[in-house]
Each structure stands twice: as C-alpha cells, then as structure tokens.
C-alpha cells in the first residue's frame, strides 16, 4: 500500500509517499519515515489520522497496530506527522538527581555564608549532619535505582523537560540546603528529630521495596502495557511508591523544620498526584 505522509498544515513531508507491504505496522511506517527523513528517529514522530469533522483531538497511531486496520474503510492512506522535537529516554532522569546530590553538601562543608555577610564560624547541630547524610543518601538511592532497578518503557520525554526539571531540583536544593545549614538555624527538639528521620528511613526502605515490586511486574521481553501492582503496600494504596516517597520527605521536614523544605514537599506531592492515570490514594 502507498501511504502519504503530510505535516499538520497539509504539506507533504515525504515526497511521493511510502510504499509498504499489506501487513506493515505503524512501527514499520515510522522506520521508513526515519530512513527517508534522516533526523526523525521513531521516538520523535507522532503519527495521527487526519481529523474527521467534529473531532477536536486527532487519533494518534499506536506502534503495534497494522496499517490496514488503522485506516478507515475506503479512505485515502494519509497520516499526519508531528515532529515532537529532541527526545530523551527516561533513564536520563538520573542526571536531574546529580544536581541536588552535589549542591546540598556544599552548604554543609563550604564557608559559603560569608558571601551574604553572615558569620563564618558556626556551631554545627547534629541534625544538620544527619540531614546532609539523609539528603545525599536519598539522591544517591534515586540514581542507583535509575541504573539498576527501574525498568523503563520505550517512552521518551521532550529534551526541554530535562532543563525544566534540573532547574526545579537545583533551585529547591539550593534553598533547602541554605536554610538547614544556616549559621542561625534553629534545630527542633531531639525527639522530634528522631521521629522525623525514623519515619524517613522507614519510608525510604518501603519505597525501595515498592520499586522492586514494580520492576518485577515488567515482562522480561518488555511487552509493556499496564499491570496492577500487588503485594506489600500496593494492597492498600494504589501508588504506594509515590506515597512512600512523599512520606519520607515529610520525615525529613519533621526533623529539619524549614518553610522551604515543606514548600518543596507540597510542590512535589502536587506534581506526583498528577502522574498516575488514577488518583493516588495517599
């Protein structure tokens, strides 16, 4: 069959169209487009059918479908191609965690406060030391999980997200590290500190176990598609991995008590609540 590939404005993107076998899939079509255009690797392409009257959102074509099943009866074989721009794999996420990992200890170890006119010598409270260890362990854990635990789908994110996310992580890291390690920092009582870090450690361990469960859900052949997690906290909470992540953050804040720390928690929780298709039962 001959497939015509146009842009959203109707202009033909691949001159003369693409000749494919009758059993070809959408994925085959994307591969041919990639060959003909050069720079449009598969993850960068979004193929959809032309809008029919009354439609507001186009029908996006799924990779595994056969082309003959996708085109309506008797229609021209036209697909609309959208260039999604440079994409990155999900595993690139680890890069976003490196920033906070190195930024935070700088405020603990280096005499940075003199640059804002504050006294250089300061008394270091135990909670500040524990907080630095806790924070660095948290981001170290995230990086390790990205490499060794998480199994990512083939889905990708726009490159611009990396810049946006790095700004987000680094800005909050600077603010939180600044206030927790401040020369005039006021620590909470010892009991509160132990409760906070205790909660945090337990939740981080639980979170790790949730990630293991999620990893084992994935078909070793990488079939993809969604499966319901079972066992452990997933029996009670839909997105137990996000829940434990939020509560470990709460633990950190109970122990360190800063306005910016709590603000970060609120923002992060809000962002996470958006992710799953069904609401997170926190």
């Amino acid at each position, binding site marked *: 069959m001959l497939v015509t590939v146009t842009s959203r404005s109707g202009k033909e993107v691949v001159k003369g169209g693409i000749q494919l076998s009758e059993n070809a899939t959408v994925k085959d079509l994307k591969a041919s487009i990639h060959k003909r255009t050069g720079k449009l690797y598969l993850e960068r392409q979004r193929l959809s059918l032309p809008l029919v009257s009354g439609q507001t959102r186009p029908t996006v074509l799924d990779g595994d479908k056969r082309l003959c099943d996708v085109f309506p009866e008797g229609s021209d074989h036209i697909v609309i191609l959208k260039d999604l721009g440079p994409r990155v794999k999900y595993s690139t996420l680890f890069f976003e965690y490196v920033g906070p990992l190195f930024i935070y200890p700088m405020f603990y170890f280096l005499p940075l406060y003199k640059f804002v006119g504050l006294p250089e010598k300061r008394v270091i409270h135990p909670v500040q030391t524990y907080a630095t260890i806790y924070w660095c362990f948290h981001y170290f854990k995230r990086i390790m999980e990205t490499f060794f635990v998480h199994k990512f789908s083939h889905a990708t994110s726009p490159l611009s997200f990396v810049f946006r996310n790095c700004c987000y992580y680094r800005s909050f890291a600077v603010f939180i590290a600044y*206030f*927790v390690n*401040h020369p005039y920092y*006021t620590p909470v009582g010892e009991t509160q500190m132990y409760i906070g870090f205790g909660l945090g450690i337990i939740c981080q361990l639980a979170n790790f176990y949730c990630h293991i469960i999620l990893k084992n859900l994935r078909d070793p052949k990488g079939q993809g598609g969604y499966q319901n997690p079972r066992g452990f906290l997933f029996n009670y909470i839909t997105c137990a991995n996000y829940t434990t992540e939020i509560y470990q953050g709460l633990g950190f804040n109970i122990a360190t*008590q*800063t*306005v910016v720390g709590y603000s970060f928690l609120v923002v992060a929780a809000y962002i996470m609540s958006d992710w799953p298709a069904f609401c997170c039962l926190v």
Partner: protein
Amino acid sequence: MAGLAILKRIYLAVYNWVVFAGWLQVLYWAVQTLRTSGYEAVYAAVERPLQFAQTAAILEIFHGMFGLVRSPVSATLPQIGSRIYVTWAILWSFPETRTSPIVSSLVLSWSITELIRYSFFGMREAFGITPSFLQWLRYSTFYILYPTGISSEVGLILTALPYVKVSEKYCLRMPNRLNIAFDNYFATLFTLASYIPGSPYMYTYMIGQRAKALAKAKKSA
C-alpha cells in the same frame, strides 16, 4: 444555560465599567494636578482611585482561571503582578517615592491604557459592539504605552531601592523557629531582573494579539 451566560455578561459589564470609572478618576486628577500644582502632588491626588482600580484587577486572574474570559493566566499574571507590586510594595510602602516625576508618567501610561482596555471590554459585554476605532486603539497604543509604563515601573523601583535597603521593611530575619528568612532588598533586585525577560515577553505577546485581532477583523469584514 442561558441564564448563567446572561449573569456572566452582566457581571463582566459591571466589572469593566466600574473599573473604567476608577481609571477615569485617576486620569482626571492626574491631569488636573499637573496643571495646577505640579508633579510632586500627583500621587496624593490619585492614590485612592488608583489603589481601587489596580487592586480590583486581581479579580481578572480568577476570570481567566474560571473561564469567564479567554485571556491565559500566563499573560495576566505578570501584568497584574507588576502593577500590584508597584502600587503597594513600592508607592504605598515607601512614601519617599511619591514625589518623583516618574509617578506622573506611570499614572498617565497606566490610566490611558486601562481606559481603552476597559471601555473596549465594557462595550462588548454591555452593548455587544466592538467599535473598530476602540479596537485599533487597544491594539496599537501599547506600542508606546508599554515602554513608557514599563520604564516608569522600573524607574520607580530603582528610586525606592535605597529606602528598601535602609528601612529593612518587610524583612524577616533568622533565627526563628520556621528557619525562614526574607531579604526585601534582594527580592527587589530579583524583581527588577525579572523585567529583563518579562518585558519582551509581554510586548511580543501584545504584538501577537494584535496580529490575531486584525486578522479576525479582516476576515469578518
């Protein structure tokens, strides 16, 4: 629901004309004072209607959020944010700035722009007409009034800077139990810096709006 649509229209008509009346007072008193007393007295003459009309504009954020109007929050927020900031955090908070000649250029730029804008929307909501002259004014005067208005805002903030630093007004110092601090001087510098990307963004947004509006007018002609 037809009833809801009518209610929305009445509300928007009333809102636009009431705020219009506020800005009319601002312009009137500004011009009067300039003619009789001089620029040092302009702020005192316009303070109340200015604060009223400008603060009322906060409602427009909610209008956008709840879909009462089509303007995106991304364009309304910086505009209203900078106006409220200059009105309350600079002029009201630091009386030393009130006698500056920049107050006059600020108030004239703001009031003329807003009179055109509110009457345009007021006409549309109340009478269903969009006079092409008014539409032309709305999408053309910004070419001059945005630069004069923005320069006046920046000028006033710069005028206030030394007083912000010395007075320590609105500053929050550590130690405190919430481990939070706020330095107004740094925050003011940061606000000034935000005008560097912010101004071209707003200006080009209006240029884009102008192109859209004129294309629409051409189509329906």
